[in-house]
């Protein structure tokens, strides 16, 4: 199951988390959402996003 979680707090600050996406799939999935909301001010990759890049490097060995 792939999830996109958007949290909007009392100050109208928006955070977007994604779960279940591999590699950079999460960025593609949320591109339109981010553009619709406004301007990205901070973006942090998580272990799951980096995991597929590592596997790709191992495969090339």
């Amino acid at each position, binding site marked *: 199951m792939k999830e996109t979680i958007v949290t909007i707090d009392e100050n109208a600050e928006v955070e977007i988390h994604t779960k279940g996406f591999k590699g950079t799939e999460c960025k593609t*999935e949320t591109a339109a959402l981010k553009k619709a909301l406004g301007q990205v001010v901070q973006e942090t990759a998580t272990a799951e996003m980096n995991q597929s890049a590592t596997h790709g490097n191992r495969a090339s060995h």
Partner: protein
Amino acid sequence: MSHVVKVELHITDLDALAKAAEMLGLEFKEGQKTFAWFGQHVGDYPLPEGFKASDMGKCDHALTVKNNDRAYGVGVCARRDGKPGYCVLFDFWAGGNGLVNHIGPEAKKLKQAYAVQVARKALLKAGNRVDIQQKGGKYVLVGRK
């Protein structure tokens, strides 16, 4: 989790703004060029970049409070700071005669409601099933596919 993003909100979708207004007991008046306010700006609060005191009361669209003719309104104005979309102008003196109860201090409730509508629309368009929950003062939208 895959990645975490923080976004600075820009009001660009007037349809979403109209739906946000509905959430808060307001009405979106497309093309209305004036909004109700005290009538005199005494320089006691800053205005958005590019706006002067003489701009108060004028707008590109407006929001009005339903069932309260005394309440001040909200001006929806094209931004003048080079960023896209609209900013909101409003007079909060004496709570705007009830306006601030609807939009919150600094219009934070209005901006929050707008973000909810934009996010919901985008998640649905991407093919998600969308659940919306309120947890304390926060809205949490979960899109699943």
